[in-house]
């Protein structure tokens, strides 16, 4: 009897499992089952390429990861806001300035959101932007090299979360401060004087059409609230920007409770074309403030950090009709514009509905001054007047919304751990699928653009738990790939990601692959320390600095025997990779170096700073397997005591001792 009860239990379990699978076919099914042909949908045969690149935030790793979709294969981790020993980023003298800020060198930040450059509201495959969330910064990555080409610090900001969302012709990316803070000269104020002394800003950063170079065009001074996320208008709403805000209570402590008091917070609508007019009319006030602007050159193969000292600030009290607040229920998080630019979806993360605002109605409410009072002197539009409608009972904890270009929206729900598909016009819920677990951001291919590519949706989850083989307390992050071609979303694949994936964007591979650089031409190398050919290799003493101009090629260094370094010297190894063949980098490592190692791409020069700590002979070698004789790619450097009379000498292929000069 006991036995058959067990069997019965087993049967019940199996039956319910079957039901879960089965419900995938039902109109209102949970879709928890993986599609039975999922394997063939995500299989990319050996040697074949994926259909999409997926640029994924590396979250608290500070980096950006690149995956192939639909396979979910990790293709590259691009170092952005953190040092990366795999690439030498932040270790070589050439890359260190990229991580310079007004606070000095910062080795580790937190990267949240991705913005691919656009032309006419469509991905153009030139650059990808990302925000540094902790020490406010923006980065531009060149998609020819998959390297960080520029980092711009954002002053008068604290926690650059509401960033780097982009306008439809990449005119601007934005940076809204998460924390409001005291600004200006007197920042030493009581924390509980928040309401009086704390202010927010949103910055508009222009992007040069040719070079991509970023510049803070203007900042807008705002009430002391928290900015969360943002989206540019597009099409009919091009010229406007929408920022979700919370903490309109202006709490300075225990925000979990104190910033959740009001029924509604705001979406801030910025008429940036109007702001441009005010800038032209000279309404901007120059504010003194220090911030770093770092650029990397693929010609000198080195970064330059320039300290800037001024920004232009627009104060809404001098600039009427530039910003408006739109009430939005309960601490809105996502703030997403649909492909037509008509609808703005606010996701109140504590709300039970999803409000959808109409740009046409916003314009009408502004024209007729249909206000519901003001907030710190800024008009608040009447909620009912600007509302297209609310999605009723969509799920718990709506966070972000993306679009498929067929009139559908997909919203992630953190608390109920699901993605809900709904129609933007009718506001009807069409489908829902579970995520594993607690989805944060989601991404549809081209989802934030005017013409989404559609086809795939990826959930980036906050909790992994049991999705993969356990690896101790710390787990890989969990992402799920869904097909959205049909009426129903279909789960295809789980794949692990790095750091914590916040936002991500997918782009068709052909827009990028064809421009991907294979080598740096050695003839174009203008690094001042490059050794262009073995005739230019040398070891030079300048006071207590010793500069080694070294070349490498399969499979030796020139020079590979160096003497004459003394204790107290600072040695700079300037290593030029003479290779011109794709995928033949060389590494450079020297025993005991407490400043890292190098990885040098074909045609590139990189520099390792080394301060020897004892008198001895130190070996160095190539760390990146380069040929059958890679294990032979090595050399020695001799360090003599301070005051020693060993002269500077260097050689390759020389086996007889140097003459010791007689005194």
């Amino acid at each position, binding site marked *: 009897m006991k*036995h*058959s009860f067990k*069997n019965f239990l*087993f*049967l019940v379990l*199996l*039956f319910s*499992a*079957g039901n879960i*699978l*089965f419900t*995938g*076919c039902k109109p209102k*099914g949970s879709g928890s*089952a993986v*599609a*039975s*042909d*999922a394997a063939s*949908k995500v299989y990319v045969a050996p040697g*074949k*390429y994926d*259909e999409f690149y997926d640029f994924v935030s590396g979250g608290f790793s500070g980096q950006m990861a690149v995956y192939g979709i639909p396979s979910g294969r990790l293709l590259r981790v691009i170092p952005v806001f953190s040092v990366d020993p795999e690439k030498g980023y932040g270790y070589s003298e050439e890359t260190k300035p990229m991580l310079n800020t007004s606070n000095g060198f910062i080795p580790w930040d937190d990267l949240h959101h991705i913005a691919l450059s656009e032309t006419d509201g469509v991905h153009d495959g030139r650059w990808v932007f990302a925000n540094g969330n902790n020490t406010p910064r923006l980065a531009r990555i060149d998609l020819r090299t998959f390297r960080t080409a520029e980092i711009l610090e954002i002053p008068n900001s604290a926690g650059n979360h509401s960033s780097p969302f982009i306008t439809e012709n990449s005119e601007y990316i934005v940076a809204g401060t998460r924390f409001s803070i005291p600004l200006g000269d007197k920042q030493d104020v009581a924390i509980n004087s928040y309401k009086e002394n704390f202010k927010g800003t949103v910055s508009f950063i222009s992007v040069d059409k040719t070079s991509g170079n970023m510049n803070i065009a203007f900042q807008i001074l705002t009430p002391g609230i928290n900015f969360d996320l943002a989206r540019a208008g597009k099409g009919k709403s091009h010229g406007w920007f929408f920022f979700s805000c919370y903490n309109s209570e202006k709490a300075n402590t225990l925000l979990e409770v104190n910033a959740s008091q009001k029924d509604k917070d705001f979406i801030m609508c910025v008429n940036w074309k109007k702001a441009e007019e005010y800038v032209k009319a000279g309404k901007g006030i120059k504010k003194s403030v220090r911030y770093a602007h770092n650029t990397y050159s693929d010609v000198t193969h080195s970064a330059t950090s320039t300290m800037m000292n001024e920004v232009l600030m627009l104060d809404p009290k001098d600039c009427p009709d530039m910003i408006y607040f739109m009430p939005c229920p309960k601490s809105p998080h996502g703030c997403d514009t649909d492909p037509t630019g008509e609808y703005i979806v606010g996701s109140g993360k504590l709300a039970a509905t999803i409000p959808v605002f109409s740009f046409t109605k916003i314009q009408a409410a502004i024209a007729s001054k249909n206000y519901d009072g003001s907030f710190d002197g800024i008009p608040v539009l009447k909620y009912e007047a600007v509302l297209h409608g609310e999605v009723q009972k969509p799920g718990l904890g709506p966070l972000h919304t993306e679009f498929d270009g067929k009139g559908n929206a997909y919203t992630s729900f953190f608390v109920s751990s699901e993605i809900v598909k709904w129609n933007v016009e009718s506001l009807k819920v069409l489908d829902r699928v579970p995520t594993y677990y607690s989805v944060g951001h989601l991404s549809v291919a081209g989802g934030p653009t005017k013409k989404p590519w559609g*086809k*795939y949706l990826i959930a980036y989850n906050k909790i992994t738990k049991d999705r993969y083989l356990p690896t101790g307390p710390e787990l890989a992050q969990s992402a799920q790939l869904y*097909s959205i*071609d*049909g009426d*129903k979303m*279909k789960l*295809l694949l789980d794949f692990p990601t790095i750091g914590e994936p916040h936002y991500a964007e997918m782009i068709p*591979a*052909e827009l990028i*692959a*064809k421009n*991907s650089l*294979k*080598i740096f*031409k*050695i*003839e174009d190398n203008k690094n001042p320390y490059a050794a262009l*050919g*073995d*005739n230019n290799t040398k070891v030079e003493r300048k006071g207590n600095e010793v500069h080694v101009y070294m*070349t490498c*090629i*399969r*499979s*030796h260094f*020139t020079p590979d025997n160096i003497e004459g370094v003394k204790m107290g010297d600072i040695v700079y190894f300037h290593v030029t990779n*003479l*290779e*011109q*063949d*794709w995928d*033949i980098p060389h590494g450079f490592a020297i025993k005991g170096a407490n400043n890292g190692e190098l990885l040098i791409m074909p045609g590139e020069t990189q520099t390792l700073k080394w301060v020897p700590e004892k008198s001895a002979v130190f070996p160095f070698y190539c760390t990146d397997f380069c*040929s*059958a*004789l890679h294990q032979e790619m090595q050399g020695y450097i001799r360090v003599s005591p301070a005051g020693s009379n060993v002269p500077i000498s260097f050689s390759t*292929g020389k086996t007889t001792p140097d003459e010791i000069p007689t005194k």
Partner: protein
Amino acid sequence: MKASIIKMTLALAIASFGLFSCGNEGVNKDEKTVDLQDLTKNQPEQHGSELKESDIVVTNPLNAEWVKAGQAIYNLKCQSCHRLTGDKLVGPGWKDVTKRRTPLWIMNMATNVEMMLETDPEAQKLLEQCMVRMPNQNLNKEQARTVVEFMRSNDGEK
């Protein structure tokens, strides 16, 4: 009793899996005409197409400008592995190379090393001796021709 439960279980399981397959429209992969593998070949790399005898004209006296240009390329891209004497370093020394090899062979080796290592018995023999695949050093046909001129000069031609 037991047997019938198992039977039922099986039946239900089969039914469930059978029903499950009804929702499989999934992703329709577009058959794209664009060939990604091909798209990525448009690079500054100069992996040339095979040169023919008719592509190369060798005359005397030597073209002094070419000799100079060829030497500059040698200094930047070849010297690390090839001595101007007969001594082997990583690759063979260049002394008398123009007497051992035809200009066509040398230029194909310089611009089209992958093809040579796949098809040319002499190139394959060298790989066995040197154990390092000669790297593609991104030379085009014209540049390779100047290197040949420099080699001729190195071999004493006027």
